[in-house]
């Protein structure tokens, strides 16, 4: 890491951190990242701080740094060094949660965890958990030879809990004249979950398996449905895991649609001016910036309402852990306040991550969904309108 020593002490990272604003014991990214790192480098046994685990790994600190210090990744190192000091039960739990591709295979998926189970597994009894979505998302159509192909990365969450999202994304892809190969063929995690929990070596192993699986089907374009996986595959793999997908361009499904769809495509959407909240997740802001989903909504003749919060508090498995209950609730309340502040102008919200959608739904009471689902639905509306129009044309 070339710039790990470049800290200017300017504290811009702290201004970007959502956790310092809700957690009085969290000293902040500068203290847990570069300051800890510098001391740690100089004296091998420098003390770790238990509150480093309160970090959501949103990486907004790192994106804010004017000196390219990998602030969040230094914090991940700090968490990794702190790992051995965590109680056994939490370590076991973290290990399990670091493998979301295993969890998705569990035969049960309760909305809430009972108090007894919560205590045993050190899970939050407050958080909503995802419920399995058995929607069959693969169209089952054979891949055509002469149709341009894009890869669609089916992340752990959407594979088990977001079948409808994948199906909708696929539908839009085929409407744009492409066919989607769902990848990887077996459940694999990009490693983001393990990295966020500070299991750096485990993350490397998981990511390596995943990269291996993805390389089986070489594609030129790989579309992601989750901002965290997107940033991990494209930015973190080469930088922190020395992994790459040669010849493959990774980008969010939304951005690809913006790039690919022509005016013709957009013209089919009726001008309903349907308002919808837009929340670009923290990891989405880091990986791509902001405003793409708003543009997307606008082009589909909707009216985007940017939510205006940094991180909703879901942060992958963060909100599921009992010790983060308080911070996750506080951050969730900020989302609710943001909706309230701007006047309750819409009932639905689009967000580029499944766990965030779940968390935001719990706190705002809104109907939250991936932009693919939102567009897919509008597409169906448009088509049924088309059909109606056809029918009425025929009648005339």
């Amino acid at each position: 890491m070339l710039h790990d020593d470049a800290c200017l002490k300017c504290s811009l990272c702290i201004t970007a951190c959502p956790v310092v604003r809700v957690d009085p014991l969290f000293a902040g990214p500068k203290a847990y990242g570069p300051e800890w790192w510098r001391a740690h480098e100089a004296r091998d046994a420098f003390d770790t701080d238990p509150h480093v685990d309160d970090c959501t790994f949103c990486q907004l600190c790192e994106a804010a740094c004017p000196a390219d210090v990998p602030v969040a990744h230094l914090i991940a190192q700090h968490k990794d060094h702190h790992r051995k000091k965590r109680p056994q039960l939490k370590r076991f739990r973290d290990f399990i949660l670091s493998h979301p591709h295993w969890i998705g295979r569990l035969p049960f998926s309760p909305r809430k965890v009972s108090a007894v189970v919560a205590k045993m597994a050190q899970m939050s009894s407050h958080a909503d958990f995802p419920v399995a979505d058995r929607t069959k998302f693969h169209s089952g159509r054979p891949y055509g030879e002469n149709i341009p192909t894009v890869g669609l990365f089916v992340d752990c969450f959407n594979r088990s809990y977001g079948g409808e999202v994948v199906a909708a994304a696929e539908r839009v892809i085929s409407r744009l004249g492409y066919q989607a190969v769902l990848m990887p063929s077996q459940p694999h995690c990009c490693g983001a979950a393990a990295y966020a929990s500070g299991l750096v070596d485990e993350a490397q192993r998981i990511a390596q398996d995943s990269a291996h699986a993805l390389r089986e089907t070489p594609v030129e374009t790989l579309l992601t449905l989750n901002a965290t996986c997107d940033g991990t595959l494209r930015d973190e793999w080469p930088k922190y895991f020395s992994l790459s997908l040669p010849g493959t361009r990774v980008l969010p499904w939304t951005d690809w649609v913006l790039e690919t769809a022509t005016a013709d495509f957009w013209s089919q959407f009726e001008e309903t001016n349907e308002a919808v909240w837009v929340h670009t997740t923290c990891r989405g802001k880091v990986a791509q910036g902001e405003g793409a989903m708003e543009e997307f909504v606008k082009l589909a003749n909707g009216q985007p309402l940017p939510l205006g919060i940094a991180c909703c508090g879901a942060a992958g498995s963060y909100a599921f852990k009992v010790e983060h209950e308080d911070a996750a609730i506080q951050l969730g309340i900020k989302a609710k306040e943001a909706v309230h502040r701007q006047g309750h102008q819409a009932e639905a919200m689009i967000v580029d991550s499944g766990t965030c959608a779940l968390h935001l739904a719990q706190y705002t009471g809104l109907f939250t969904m991936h932009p693919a689902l939102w567009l897919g639905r509008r597409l169906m509306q448009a088509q049924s309108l088309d059909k109606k129009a056809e029918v009425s044309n025929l009648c005339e």
Partner: protein
Amino acid sequence: MPMTEPWIIVGKGPAGLLAASLLLEQGHRVVVVAKGQGSLPLWSGALDFYSWDTKQHPVKAPYDHADHLSGLSLNREQWQAGWEDWRRILQKVGVQTQVSPDHENLLSPTLSGVLVPRYLVPEWQYAVTDPEPVTVVSWDGILDLDLHLWAERYQQHTKMAAKTIQRPGPQGWTARWTPLHWAGYLDSESGRRWLADDLEAALDDTFDQCPVLVPQIIGIRHTEEILSDLRVRLGRPVKEIPLIAPCLGGVRIAERWKEYLLGHGVRFVADEVVGVDGFGVQLATGGALSGRVVLATGGVLGGGFRLQWDRTVINTATGQSIAWSGKPEDLSCIGVSDANSLWGVVGRSAGGWDGDRHGGAGHVLGTVLAWVNAMHEEVYCAAR
């Protein structure tokens, strides 16, 4: 008059956001490309303009000295109109500002008790035309504001009395709190209650008509609301003294400004520009954006220029190396003459102007104004 080609603003510091807002007002489509956070949170939020004379005395009437920025060739009326533009945009963004009634600088105390001239000051910050006696309250652990020293300097500087009250922090406070921790706490219901109760308990009848000054920790989202509630409850105005970076004033402005632009269809691309030409920009991650380009990459601080050990300077956006005398004091104006007719450069000093020493908002505004005025015909290039 929407245009198909967007304007690409590189950088999201004050110059970038101001340029984006002015273009947006004129109906253009705008994309902001920036890596990092922008320098606004390093500012208190008060905008200075030609603050000091050569003997380091604060100067009250800024326009009389505009010739020092002669490269900008703007007259007094244009300047004033420019400030009004900036003020209007801040208002749209949700930040109310105060200016002196006679369009001179206001005086505002720094955290060390010295008065400095500021032109445009957000409502939350204490600024006056004529100094008055004040009461200053601070809490343990706010390291940068030393009340004893503050009062000594304030009295020396203004010949006015300053009463100081030091209070313990709230329950749950730790030694590692930054202003952001304070802000988060005071934005919450319990924090607001604590603050009002604590201030009420702290104040006595001394100077009961005078304003109460507190360090800049009063929330991010609810600042104005909290301050106006306090005014009602305490019967006297409560205003902030800006602290050192990270400055909450700048954080408030940056967050609201970004939200405003997002709400008006501006797209923020998180990437680094590694090349510029007449058609657009190349991005570090491999993509490209086409449109007309404005470089608001700031100075060395903003990452617009990278100094190397052999004294070459690289313009990070164009990748080109440019000349530097090697003298530290010349850093504030490197790169201005680098402006190519294919793109605009804003936010840089217009030659020989030491913004760190004398105030930097002047050349942010001057360059943005000059460029926006000239944008259709010719692109601003100060040093030629």
